[in-house]
């Protein structure tokens, strides 16, 4: 014997904190809520309640649209334990319009070979009765068909 599987589970209570709670409650209503730093003015989403650069609380909530661009991406073609999506799929960095930081999002409704840096995308939400305080409320992002953002416009987000 070289390995023994021991199925175990652990129950815990997750406390997301004030800033992330606002973000998660926004998702439950089908909208994105970020926060602005009072010093540098950058908009974080999801916000952790403080600006890592300035070390100050980010108190001001900012409503963001569900549109943005793909800054960069990869095509995941490797199977591994715990994977919930059929390969190949696109894991992209999505920068919402008005945000100053990207987060990872799934891109669908486009062949993997057609995805581009700078491509405009929009969130596709789950059905209203399925919305919850989780990023799983966003099924994926799809291309809007609008013109790509020029590279220079998002270069600093890479």
């Amino acid at each position, binding site marked *: 014997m070289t390995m023994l599987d021991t199925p175990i589970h652990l129950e815990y209570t997750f406390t*997301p904190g004030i800033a992330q709670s606002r973000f998660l409650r926004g998702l439950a209503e089908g909208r994105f809520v970020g926060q602005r730093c009072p010093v540098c003015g950058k908009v974080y989403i999801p916000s952790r309640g403080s600006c*890592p650069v300035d070390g100050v609380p980010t108190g001001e909530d900012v409503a963001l649209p569900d549109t943005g661009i793909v800054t960069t991406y990869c095509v*995941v*073609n490797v199977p591994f334990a715990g*994977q919930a999506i059929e390969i190949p799929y696109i894991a*992209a960095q999505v920068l919402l319009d008005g945000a100053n930081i990207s987060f990872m999002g*799934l891109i669908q409704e486009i062949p*993997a070979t057609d995805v581009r840096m700078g491509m405009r995308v929009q969130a596709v939400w789950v059905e209203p009765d399925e919305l919850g305080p989780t990023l799983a409320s966003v099924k994926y992002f799809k291309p809007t068909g609008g013109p790509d953002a020029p590279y220079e416009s998002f270069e600093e987000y890479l």
Partner: protein
Amino acid sequence: MADRCAVIGVGQTHLRAKREDVSIPGLVREAALRALADAELTFADIDAVVIGKAPDMFEGVMMPELSLAAALGAVSKPMMRVHTAGSVGGSTALVAAHLIASGIHRRVLTVAYEKQSDSDAMWALSVPQPFAAPLLAGAGGYFAPHIRAYMRRSGAPDHIGRMVAVKDRRNALKNPYAHLHLEDIDMKMVEESIMLWDPLRYLEACPSSDGAAAMVLAAEDAVSGAYPPAWVHGMAMRSEPTMFAGRDQVNPQAGRDCAADVYRQAGITDPRADLDMAEVYVPFSWYEPMWLENLGFCPEGEGWKLTESGATALDGDIPWNASGGVLSSNPIGASGMLRFLEAAMQVRGQAGEHQVEGARRALGHAYGGGSQFFAMWVVGSDKP
């Protein structure tokens, strides 16, 4: 003024996909005994042990340092664990070196390991987070988008990644400890390997390895062993948050700052000219050109030209990863220490077939997390 610190013993295990012949205690002891033998010492001569590995979840053994004390001769001696994700092997060596440089101890054993076959690191790196999207990308899925960004930013042609993949695997053929010994490796073989995380192919990614590395570090008055010591000329660690607005994920500030600090201590103004070789943490082929720029071996945007010119090959003017590097062996927690250890072996003239002729000053480098932890040292054959 800090005390001088010397590397007087190095030891590593054979790095393999599965070391089924040993337990974790057996694995770390194997490396430690080799380092002690190199220094002509025994456990009794050691004042303290500093150990590092990747996060506990990788093997599912919590706080393994407690149960490894006996295997490392550390019972009733000071022992310390270091945690800095993939850079931990480097940080661990630096913590040990600080214990010498500060005058606290005279001889410190430092060890790092990973036993990936006891675990599923891909799973450990991809555990769903509460309230997060059910989108997991795996180990390479985090880095591949940044590689794509580098390619776009620098205009580097596709074949650069393949060149690094071939170069490091050819170097590994000269290193009996290396995990991958791909006799027939060439550009075509890399190009035909499966695409894992487009733009990253299977042979442009590191393997999963079992293995351990160990070093004995000593104060100037405690130097021993048959080989001349490798003297620490400079050491630095830096970190930055994984996420902040305006973060340069291709060329992180923490890496640049860490390099600047270690070069200043070592009196290096032009790393390409002043160093004889470098062992740099390159787990995916494209991180060679990216780190060539981050570490100041060339101007920004030109790392790929240095790789393409052959400058980083074993017979180039600044060989990178003569050992075969992380691309050829990746016992995660030990991978950073192996870079530090290989740099020391080179300046001690004990690297055998992959010895860079006349190497007198070398860089050891490690990074980890989301390119957020950096650890580096410069070692030399001359006393600083």
